């Protein structure tokens, strides 16, 4: 009995086209951006209509939103560190960078929750629905970004992601960057120009 060998003249299998996740994440990020920017536009329009009475019964501190902004700025570096590391098969650094990014994201979630209790804005107030719609939509996007990065990291632990297939981290990072960029618009429109 002889052992079969693969003939050398056979063409190598064409590797699957990559970037599927990256394109998908790009579309998801674009859709989320349109949603949040539209909400922000509606918020600004209503605030303009109400005039100086807008949020006169509430005090929105700037400390927490600005801390959140800088936290997200740091997380943009760490998530890119994860992409850089997986592209070089430095798995330890990849896990570390992802973990730090997720912790920073959770810190922003926590601080937003604290901010909500500080502001004490009721849904029955005229500012309530749009304030919570804008900030809540961004919070949901942050949650989705954390989940996306977490699942990608777990899949990397299972060996599905490597320098040969880094798409998962690139896609999660793309979504993360768009989320952080949108926070800048929310920070400026809702918290700074209040």
């Amino acid at each position, binding site marked *: 009995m002889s052992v079969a060998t693969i003939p050398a003249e056979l063409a190598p299998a*064409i590797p699957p086209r990559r970037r599927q996740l990256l394109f998908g994440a790009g579309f998801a990020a674009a859709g989320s951006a349109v949603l949040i920017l539209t909400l922000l536009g509606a918020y600004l329009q209503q605030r303009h209509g109400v005039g100086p009475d807008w949020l006169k019964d509430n005090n929105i501190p700037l400390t927490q939103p600005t801390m959140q902004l800088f936290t997200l700025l740091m997380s943009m570096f760490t998530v890119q560190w994860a992409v850089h590391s997986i592209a070089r098969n430095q798995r330890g650094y990849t896990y570390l960078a992802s973990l730090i990014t997720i912790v920073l994201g959770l810190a922003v979630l926590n601080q937003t929750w604290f901010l909500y209790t500080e502001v004490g804005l009721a849904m029955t107030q005229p500012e309530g629905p749009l304030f919570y*719609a804008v900030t809540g939509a961004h919070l949901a996007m942050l949650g989705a970004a954390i989940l996306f990065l977490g699942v990608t990291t777990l899949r990397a632990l299972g060996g599905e992601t490597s320098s040969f297939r880094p798409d998962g981290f690139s896609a999660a990072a793309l979504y993360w960057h768009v989320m952080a960029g949108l926070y800048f618009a929310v920070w400026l429109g809702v918290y700074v120009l209040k």
Partner: protein
Amino acid sequence: MTMTDTSPAVETAPAVEQPGPGINRATEPTAFERLVGSGDHRLIGRVFILCSLVFLAAGAVVSALVDANTASDGSIFSSEVAQRLLMNEQVGLLLLGVLPLLLGIAIAVVPTQVGSPAVAFPRAAAASLWTWLGSALVFIVTVAADGSYGGGHLKAARLGNVAVGALMVALCLAAVCVAVTVLSLRPAGLGLDRVPFFAFSMLVTASILVLTIPASLAHVVVGHISRADGSALATSTFSGGVDWLFQPPAVFMLFIPVLGILADVVATAVGDRQRFRGLVLSLIGVAGLASYGAWAQGTVAQSTLLWAGFVLLAGLPLLGVGAAVADTLGRGKPKFMSPLAFVALALPIALIGAGIGAFRVVNSIGKGTLGDFNLAAVSLAQFRVVLGAAVIAALGGIFYWGRQIFGASLPEAAGKGLAGVVALGIALWGIPWLVVGLSNTDSNAFAAIAAVGAAIIVLVALGTLGAAVGPRRGGESDSADPWGGGGTLEWSDGPLAGPIESAYPVLDGKDAS
């Protein structure tokens, strides 16, 4: 014998699979479980198409009733109910009827057009289907229960708004699956400039949908969390945040797939390559650009020069692609097939829709001083005509790709008959309201004509459904291409012998042999 040889015993073994020891037949998935759990793009596309045809017929029934009510001076419903049905009819026709119909065709056909065995993110595609279907049923129930926009029942009104939001999310998800399929699942050699026109048009449509629908979804979200009742949902969420989807330029996104189906069908009918291919692709891109309407949500935006530019631009691709396909038709001997009849009728109806847009632009520039028009009637006519053009093209697509979608060609005679009937129905459904709008006359008689048009659309939707699920015609060839002139990948009998070097690899193979 080598280790990789198959033993003769195995070769002659019966093909019927027997359950092995320990395998219980009762644990095998049932037909329902296979349907719900399937990621097969053809199955997902089929369910999208069949259900959207049913919903299209239901929407047309509501439309017929509303028009009949107008014709009979409100003898069927009160004016409040008629207004509520009119609002929800438009939502239903777009989100339950036409958009899912086009996306369903795309999910079933686009992977085969780009040479992929599956759609991108098949589980997401399945999730989009079932979310859409569930939300559609909830929406219909809420409308029937005096809910949704303008409804008097508080909980049903809010639930209807949530269902609309879920419909939007589901359609965006389906659009992402289609767009990513075109972008990343193409084989080597099939560049974006070589994909079939329909696949390219759906890439553009899906991109525009993803950038447009969330802008409307934002208002749906605000409407929900502000705990608005039915009338507040009608005045704020619908009038301020949803109805711009039915106005130009956003509604012109329905033109994009019309162009794709038109160009593909004409090339196959002639059995040759579409001339001016680059121009046609560019014009499809222009159609996408001109139909981006998320920026024009308010009435203020809809009276600006930018809005006028967008609306006027939307007619250009129709004229350009029309000229290109006419040139292709003129240079060959087109085979008279039912899809050609559909698209040949869809184009002039789409041009009427674009023409109404041009009229609105001129009237807007003249600040309404051109005459005493009923602009609400003109707007309704435009929505119906544009939507109708997309319906005609989509039905043409179903007959054109019947073999790819349903496994066998749909009856040609039925297709040829339905093409003329649906065009008549659309004309009767929309044009009378244009006459009412322009002449500002009493609408009773015209509404009666429009009701007849809607009834014809019901019959056509059900007729197409019957042709799709009914018995297939016999005696057809075994070839994957029943038209004999298909040149793109979906018409290939099997794997291609060589690399892809043009936009028409199947025609290349025929030429070589």
